[in-house]
């Protein structure tokens, strides 16, 4: 199917479906690169006093693993699915600004290539961890040009995301088909709208910080090398971006879980209006919690206490979202397909990851957690667990729509089992390594960390290959000659109506003339009197 298009068509496309595929393929490429880095780190840490990666190499790998995974893998996988699915869900023929969309993609790709390229420069790449703290990031302590290029690549990525957010917000506001009012907007589209709105507010401060860092490194300004600016200034700018960023990462996952649960429990989302309100509350609150990353910086304690309150506050609507998803299963007709299994696993990891986050919201508890492997465990549970599992579920779920093929269901379930078991063996030990600092390249035997680290590495060697096999399953399916039907799940959302859309440029393949009936959840075409008052779904 894809081979029918020439290289030129792929290089010049502005069609949302093809740009979506480009995003997904590129994100998978970066997943393999960053995942390999993860495997290297786990291999080195399996036993004490390992040095096959010298500390400088290890430091660059840690930095790239974090940056690539959060920004170049998880966010774009969500964006790729959004590119493909959101216009179909709202009955739009494409995004509002198709050429801008393509520009978003190409800047994303080039920014990632620049970032990965930094390790090949003389002096190597950035060696600061993904958080790029000052003054370690200044020219005095990181003299290599690779660190400058890394900052610039990150800034280019921020530009790419800002373009995407302008595009998606405009599309969702202006290009919904007749009948798709705000309350009837599908949940996945809602989650993307929230993601993009948050991205609009989160990325500029990062871009500003990177601008100041770049002028420091190239022109000799002193924002981060002075003590008046320095560490605290960087942390404020970075975390004002950094915290909303992790919600940007997880929001599409929540949207996907909602869609998958609805289809495979054959039920509408539980209390959709309340779900959306809670979603909006989390979005809004996430802009006011950032200093919980700064509990150990010595900033005025009363200020930090305020952020402790807001962090605890955000856990309330967030847990409400999770409960809403679980209650969607109540009295449903549940079918345990592979996407469903991944979403159930994602609920488990977000609950566990989430409660560990609530523990971290208390500054006095955070004194022990900060900078240790507990934190690493927390964020891998919500990112490598919930987000990655949900994105894989999304890929499985929408695969027939995107490729008209069906992956092998049994194989998918087997790789799911290995992924889930491997994931937990890999990351659960981290919660018992509260005294082990992050980002260390090795440790001595006397610390007593060796056995847990070894166990964790065993998990890595199950989890990593399982993810690769998952991807293989998808790739192999696409090569099969026999196509599957256009709606094998009997799903009810807009994107499944009409003909198979694949990668054709035809804009309206979904049934927009019947949009109103479809999004109000009617199974058959009802008489006018059967349509509920305002189409509410609760």
């Amino acid at each position, binding site marked *: 199917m894809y081979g029918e298009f020439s290289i030129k068509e792929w290089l010049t496309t502005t069609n949302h479906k093809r740009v979506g595929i480009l995003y997904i393929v590129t994100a998978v490429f970066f997943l393999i690169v960053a995942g390999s880095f993860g495997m290297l780190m786990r291999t080195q840490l399996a036993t004490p006093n390992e040095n096959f990666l010298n*500390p*400088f190499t290890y*430091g660059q790998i840690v930095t790239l693993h974090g940056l690539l995974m959060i920004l170049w893998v998880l966010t774009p996988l969500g964006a790729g699915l959004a590119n493909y699915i959101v216009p179909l869900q709202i009955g739009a023929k494409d995004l509002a600004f198709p050429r801008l969309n393509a520009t978003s993609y190409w800047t994303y790709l080039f920014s990632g290539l620049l970032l990965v390229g930094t390790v090949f420069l003389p002096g190597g790449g950035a*060696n600061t*961890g993904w958080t790029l*703290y000052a*003054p*370690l990031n200044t020219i005095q*302590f990181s003299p290599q040009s690779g660190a400058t290029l890394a900052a610039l690549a990150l800034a280019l990525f921020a530009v790419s995301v800002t373009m995407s957010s302008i595009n998606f917000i405009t599309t969702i506001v202006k290009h919904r088909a007749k009948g798709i009012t705000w309350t009837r907007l599908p949940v996945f589209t809602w989650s993307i709208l929230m993601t993009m709105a948050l991205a609009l507010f989160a990325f500029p401060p990062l871009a500003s910080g990177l601008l100041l860092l770049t002028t420091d490194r190239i022109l000799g300004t002193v924002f981060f090398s*002075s*003590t008046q600016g*320095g*560490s605290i200034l960087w942390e404020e700018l970075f975390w004002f971006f950094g915290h909303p960023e992790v919600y940007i990462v997880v929001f599409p996952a929540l949207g996907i879980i909602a869609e998958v649960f609805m289809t495979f429990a*054959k*039920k*509408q989302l539980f*209390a959709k209006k309340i779900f959306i309100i*809670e979603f909006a509350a989390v979005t809004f609150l996430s802009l006011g919690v950032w200093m919980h990353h700064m509990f*150990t*910086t*010595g900033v005025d*304690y009363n200020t930090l206490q305020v952020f402790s309150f807001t962090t*605890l506050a955000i856990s*309330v*609507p967030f*847990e409400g979202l*999770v*409960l809403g998803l*679980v209650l969607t*299963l*109540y*009295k*449903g*007709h*549940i*079918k*345990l397909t592979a996407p469903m299994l991944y979403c159930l696993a994602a*609920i*488990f990891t977000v*609950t566990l990851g989430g*409660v560990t986050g*609530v523990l971290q919201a*208390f500054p*006095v*508890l955070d*004194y*022990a957690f*900060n*900078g240790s492997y507990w934190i690493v465990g927390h964020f891998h549970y919500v990112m490598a667990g919930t987000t990655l599992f949900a994105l894989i579920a999304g890929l499985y779920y929408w695969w027939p729509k995107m490729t008209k093929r069906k992956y092998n269901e049994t194989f998918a379930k087997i790789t799911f089992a290995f992924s889930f078991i491997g994931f937990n063996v890999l990351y659960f030990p981290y919660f018992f390594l*509260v*005294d082990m*600092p992050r*980002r*260390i*390249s*090795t*440790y001595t035997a006397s610390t007593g960390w060796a056995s847990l680290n070894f166990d964790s590495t065993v998990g890595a060697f199950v989890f990593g290959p399982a993810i690769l096999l998952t991807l293989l399953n998808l790739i192999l399916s696409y090569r099969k000659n026999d196509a599957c039907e256009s709606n094998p799940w009997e799903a009810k959302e807009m994107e499944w109506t009409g003909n198979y859309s694949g990668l054709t440029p035809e804009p309206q393949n979904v049934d927009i003339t019947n949009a109103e009936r479809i999004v109000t*959840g009617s199974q058959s075409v009802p008489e006018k009197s059967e349509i509920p008052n305002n189409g509410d*779904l*609760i």
Partner: protein
Amino acid sequence: MSQPIPPSAIDWNNLFNLAASIAIIATAIVMAAMVYFVIKYRQKKGHTKFIQKIGPSKSRARDALIFAAISIILLLSLTIASYRLTPNARFPPPVSESLVVKVTAYQWAFRFDYPNGVNTTGICYVPANKSIIFNVTSIDVMHGFGLTDFRVKIEAIPGRYNVIGITTPSLDGNSELNYTIRCYEYCGVGHMDMAASLFVLDPTAFNTWLNNQTTINATAAGG
């Protein structure tokens, strides 16, 4: 003999156990519900219809409010507990009752300066049963100053003094106590080796040591 757990760690452990118990129970409830739903509402063979609604919307809003109220009460209680249970290391006893040690972190070690001008690197001697105030700073990049055994941690930031306090436990029959200080903020290629030892001595022994230090730069003897 095993080392006594410092009082700040005991308080921390209590708060942690309380919070973690609530967290585990909450997780268990959500997971149990999920697993129960998945098993009980498994799709029977044959074609099934899409279900439209479950119950009226008013009860939904009421349930959401009840849930929110329970969560808020739980979280508020924990917050109050966090205020009460753990004396905050950032608000130590007054300087007049404490030993003040200046800590200078640098790539890649910790240097300790005592009030009488003595300094050591990589090893910090303190008396037992005393409030110790650490004045932490850095002279190059950001480091972390972490004493996991005491459950305290503060960052060492260039141009800034951060204050953190601990209370050393009593020796409890040991001749001395040995705790580990580590750097918890990535600071470059020496980060994994950046550590120091905190030796808690009998107060008399400590005073003897302090007054006998006539040479500066007494370095760590294998710490």
